[in-house]
């Protein structure tokens, strides 16, 4: 974990309030594992509003053309409020404070390939962010990733070409039917899992709470392990403020709180108390 002032390389408008932010943060890019995130100060000056940094997952590491060495971070940012708005309105060359990488990402290990045949990556909108590096990691372990990507309309399915270029199977859904199947992303996922009952499939999900809960239920029904990448309002990302917790229901019915910034953001979906949305 490092706290650095980094330069904004570019801000690309992807439509539907989504932006791809590229940061010149080579030093930090070298440390990243899929699913980890960075805390960005959404303004140049440290005492300006918003005060608190905002968490964003790394979408991709960009690399030097020749050496292939990490050169910077690519972050997918959806403008949803004051902080994100200020961030995406910044100009190349401007400086922001960037702290990370933070959190426990997805654990993809070499021995996993013996147990896992296939991985379903389920994204709702900007929840796509952590899944690209995860897909690459899985492929390196010869685990076949299949993408399930849902949004309100076609324009919400940003950056899908990245996944297509990896040669992945993709399933798209939109609520308005403007692209892919009309309806919820859990529908094709349910059919997919139903057809492959008793196969060793691993599920990964990131998106709105309700969507992740639905994916969790499908996984439970199929007795599949499901990892979800959660969101919570964060004060510090250092484990100090205890502001970012999610409620955990342990097997004995006792509840307790884990910090999304430390014990997460990726959790086994069976741990989560799905009745208590943390945001």
């Amino acid at each position, binding site marked *: 974990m490092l*706290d650095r002032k980094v330069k904004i390389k570019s801000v690309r408008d992807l439509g539907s309030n989504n932006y791809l932010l590229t940061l010149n943060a080579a030093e930090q890019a070298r440390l990243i594992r899929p699913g980890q995130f960075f805390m960005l100060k959404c303004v140049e000056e440290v*005492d300006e509003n918003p005060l608190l940094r905002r968490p964003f997952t790394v979408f991709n590491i960009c690399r030097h053309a020749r050496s292939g060495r990490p050169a910077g971070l690519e972050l997918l940012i959806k403008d949803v409020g004051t902080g994100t708005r200020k961030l995406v309105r910044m100009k190349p060359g401007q400086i922001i404070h960037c702290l990370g990488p933070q959190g426990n990402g997805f654990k993809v290990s070499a021995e996993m390939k013996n147990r896992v045949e296939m991985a379903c990556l389920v994204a709702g909108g900007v929840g796509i962010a952590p899944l690209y590096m995860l897909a690459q990691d899985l492929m390196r372990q010869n685990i076949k990733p299949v993408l399930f990507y849902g949004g309100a309309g076609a324009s919400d399915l940003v950056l899908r070409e990245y996944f297509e270029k990896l040669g992945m199977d993709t399933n798209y859904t939109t609520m308005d039917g403007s692209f892919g199947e009309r309806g919820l992303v859990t529908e094709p996922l349910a059919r997919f899992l139903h057809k492959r009952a008793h196969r060793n499939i691993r599920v990964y999900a990131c998106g709105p709470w309700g969507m992740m809960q639905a994916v969790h239920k499908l996984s439970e029904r199929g007795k599949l392990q499901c990892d979800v990448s959660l969101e919570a309002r964060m004060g510090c990302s250092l484990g100090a403020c*205890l502001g970012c917790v999610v409620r955990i229901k342990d097997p004995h019915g006792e509840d307790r*709180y884990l910090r999304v910034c430390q014990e997460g953001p990726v959790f086994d979906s069976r741990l989560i108390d799905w009745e208590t949305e943390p945001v």
Partner: protein
Amino acid sequence: MQLKYIMNRKKELLKAPRMAVEIAGVRFKNPVLTASGTFGYGLEFANLMDLNSIGGIVVKGLSMKPIKGNPPPRIYETASGMLNAIGWQNIGATEFVTAKLPGLRNYETKVIVNIVGFELNDYLEVARFLNDCPGIAALELNISCPNVEKGGFHFNKNPKDTYKVTAAAKKACRKLPLWVKLSPNVTDIREFARACEDAGADAVSVINTLVGMAVDVEKRQPRLRFLTGGLSGPAIKPIALRMVWEACQAVKIPVIGVGGIARTEDALEFLIAGARAVQVGTANFYRPDASQRIALGLQEYCRSHNIEDINELVGSLHAYE
């Protein structure tokens, strides 16, 4: 040549302002501490700043047994501030002493333990326990946390109760200086500061958070599940500063200033108004090395203003005639 260098160096050292302050016989290398609940157990920040650069660390409020805390959402950002309703989540005093304190002892920074309780006995139990643990410089009695259903906050609703809990706690921790952390959610903070002084407190920390609230106008729901939360950050600095000034007028024991301190200038305001030391809170979240920067900044200020000893600054406010 070398001699000249040494002479110059000596001059410089002589010129270096004295930054240490004393509170109840304990010497802090400088007046910058971190505020309870905003710096974890200290070690979380070890990678991001030099823990030795500051005078002290006030760790997260501890109870004897671990406390789970409130359900989320627990925090929300507001204009120049934030609301929190953590609800005393902590690992418990035993775990703190075995798992955290040894690590903290590696630093030359004083450790102050903030203690919480639902009832009088909770405070006394943890005070007694910590009283015997080496490596603790003082206890800070937190009777001012607004974020638990029936927390110690009621001890800060009238000065008599404040007196009672302070006097009892003072007895329970004879070996350690006792600071009492006061709530700003009162009509007259002077009465509470005086109650602490009368009850034998060694210092008062002023202030804890102000009770606030925020509403999600789309969901028509509170932003915090606990409904209300404690407001902290630069937004509250003017209120904190006024209360520190009032407390300083009311008592002779040292007053420690807390509330919205994020920059050197903020710390200076509190010292000039009379605070013997300051605590940096919310600023640690968005600038993890804020306390170190402020400690350095104070030294720089003293140097450039020809102040030999930071204690000259304390209470040096001259009002208009």
